[in-house]
């Protein structure tokens, strides 16, 4: 065994660094969380203090829940995120499989074209997208958001997944062909399970920006019944008065679903199923 790796000093330093980073990363979340349980005065007097019997208050959550539409916003955000991720992963994996598996003219060119989107921010095309959505009558529907986010997520997904698809053993795919599996069966039954860790990575990368996005919901779907959570929370932020209790409570609640999705995907990151396939 490598001596340097089991050295207790190194281990301590390593864990120390990781713990420090964890604290820094979690600190803002922690501040939001504790302040969401405090009265307005307490938030401003001692922002870093924990809520005590004097400062404890659920007024923020009450305001948010009384707002009525909050659950609808929640649901909208959830539908948009999950549907977008589903399409990004499905189409991304399909394109990656085709690019890595089949020899056809312009294969490399197609790969580059699909990767181009990584370099060009989709927001540059906002006006054109809005025009298209108006023309197709998709404005103020969740579909508008799902389509845009799918397009936004695909380039990176194709790029990452095709690298992983290339590593899926050719022999395995050929064994499937000899056993009479169709190309679709080979894709869904053999290739997809083997790139699951990569798909989880792509999902995590895409999930947070979609969930947190304010730009496209504001432009493409500002109507009350299709508002997402981030957009819906903006009602508490006024030009002159901001209801901080409500904003902090809304944000706290907004963390939960992302957290759940993250746990689901991160479990998939655990490898193991691929071992034993070849060699």
């Amino acid at each position, binding site marked *: 065994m490598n001596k340097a790796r089991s050295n207790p000093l190194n281990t301590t330093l390593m864990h120390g660094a990781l713990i420090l980073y964890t604290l820094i990363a979690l600190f803002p979340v922690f501040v939001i969380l504790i302040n969401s349980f405090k009265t307005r005065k307490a938030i401003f007097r001692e922002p870093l203090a924990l809520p005590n019997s004097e400062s404890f208050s659920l007024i923020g959550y009450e305001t948010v829940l009384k707002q009525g539409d909050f659950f609808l916003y929640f649901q909208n955000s959830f539908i948009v995120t999950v549907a977008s991720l589903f399409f990004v992963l499905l189409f991304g994996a399909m394109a990656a499989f085709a690019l890595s598996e089949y020899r056809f003219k312009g294969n490399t060119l197609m790969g580059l074209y699909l990767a181009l989107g990584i370099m060009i921010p989709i927001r540059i095309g906002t006006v054109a997208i809005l025009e298209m959505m108006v023309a197709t009558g998709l404005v103020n529907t969740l579909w508008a958001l799902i389509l845009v986010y799918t397009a936004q997520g695909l380039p990176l997904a194709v790029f990452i997944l095709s690298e992983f698809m290339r590593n899926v053993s050719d022999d395995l795919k050929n*064994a499937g062909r000899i056993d009479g599996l169709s190309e679709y069966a080979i894709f869904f039954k053999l290739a997809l399970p083997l790139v699951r860790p990569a798909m989880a990575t792509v999902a995590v990368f895409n999930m947070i920006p979609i969930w947190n996005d304010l730009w496209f919901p504001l432009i493409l779907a500002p109507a009350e019944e299709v508002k997402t959570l981030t957009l819906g929370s903006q009602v508490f932020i006024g030009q002159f008065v901001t209801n901080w209790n409500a904003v902090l409570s809304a944000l706290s609640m907004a963390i939960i679903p992302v957290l759940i999705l993250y746990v689901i995907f991160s479990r998939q990151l655990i490898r*193991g*199923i691929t071992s*034993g*396939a070849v060699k």
Partner: protein
Amino acid sequence: MTALTLRNVNKSFGDVHVLKDINIDIEDGEFVVFVGPSGCGKSTLLRVIAGLEDASSGEVRIGDDLVNTTPPSKRGIAMVFQSYALYPHLNVRKNMTLALKQEKQPKEVIEERVSEASRMLNLEDYLERYPSELSGGQRQRVAIGRAIVRHPRLFLFDEPLSNLDAALRMNTRIEIANLHAQLSASMIYVTHDQTEAMTLADKIVVLRDGRVEQVGSPMELYNNPANKFVAGFLGSPAMNFLPASVLGEDGSHTIGIRPEDLKASGSGPLKATVRHVEELGGDTNVVAEMDGHTITVRMFGQFPVKQGEALSLTAPEDRRYRFDASGGRITS
């Protein structure tokens, strides 16, 4: 009856001409080994036969059927891969039955064939295990079992032993030979290892640069190689090649002599210096230098010789192979 017929098969990848006018006939029940150095096109040829690659031109017939455009699963073949290529998410039984289920075979048939194959390969205790829980040798047996259950017209083996260690390789080699005897099926086996080729084959096809160099039984090729390449490729240690002038002959360019045909004797006309000795117990390989050429001498039994010693050798006239400048064999 013929199991496989290849007529003028060519294969190109873009500008690279990988297979050049391949013509091969394989009889029913024959064990044929494709052998050649890496990059000679032997695996590509196997993939063309399997249908994983299309032939650029030429005819591929399995049995009497022209199969150029038939998908792999409909060709009546089964293939065993070097990397085993087991389905990682299916247990051994499901690995073996997948193809039969795809063919929509009745349940009883599937059951019977699996038990038959697992008995043959001693896999009965492992049927519910997953590939990740098996050793290399067991995985290879599962891969072979997956081929057997299909009752194919033609078995294809793509370097199936390359990933196994030496001892296991020999055992599995014997198992494959036994399997061939039991099933009396036609088999094609690709390898770069000439020992596997010599020990398993009824018929060897030697390939180089996408061309068939020679076809014949192992002993035919060993005793009567058509050219310098085949002579040098088969046999271990490899044949010695010396310029004809060194042996005092003319009329040929190069003379080949097998290491075991060189005899050491006190009065031999050829003088060499020992450079290295490999003592294997059963026999001894002596690497020596003669007129600036390295030669190998294989002695049977143990032979007390040291580095730097002088060695007198005889190369019997009737054991010499003569080749012309282009490597072709001169027979007279």
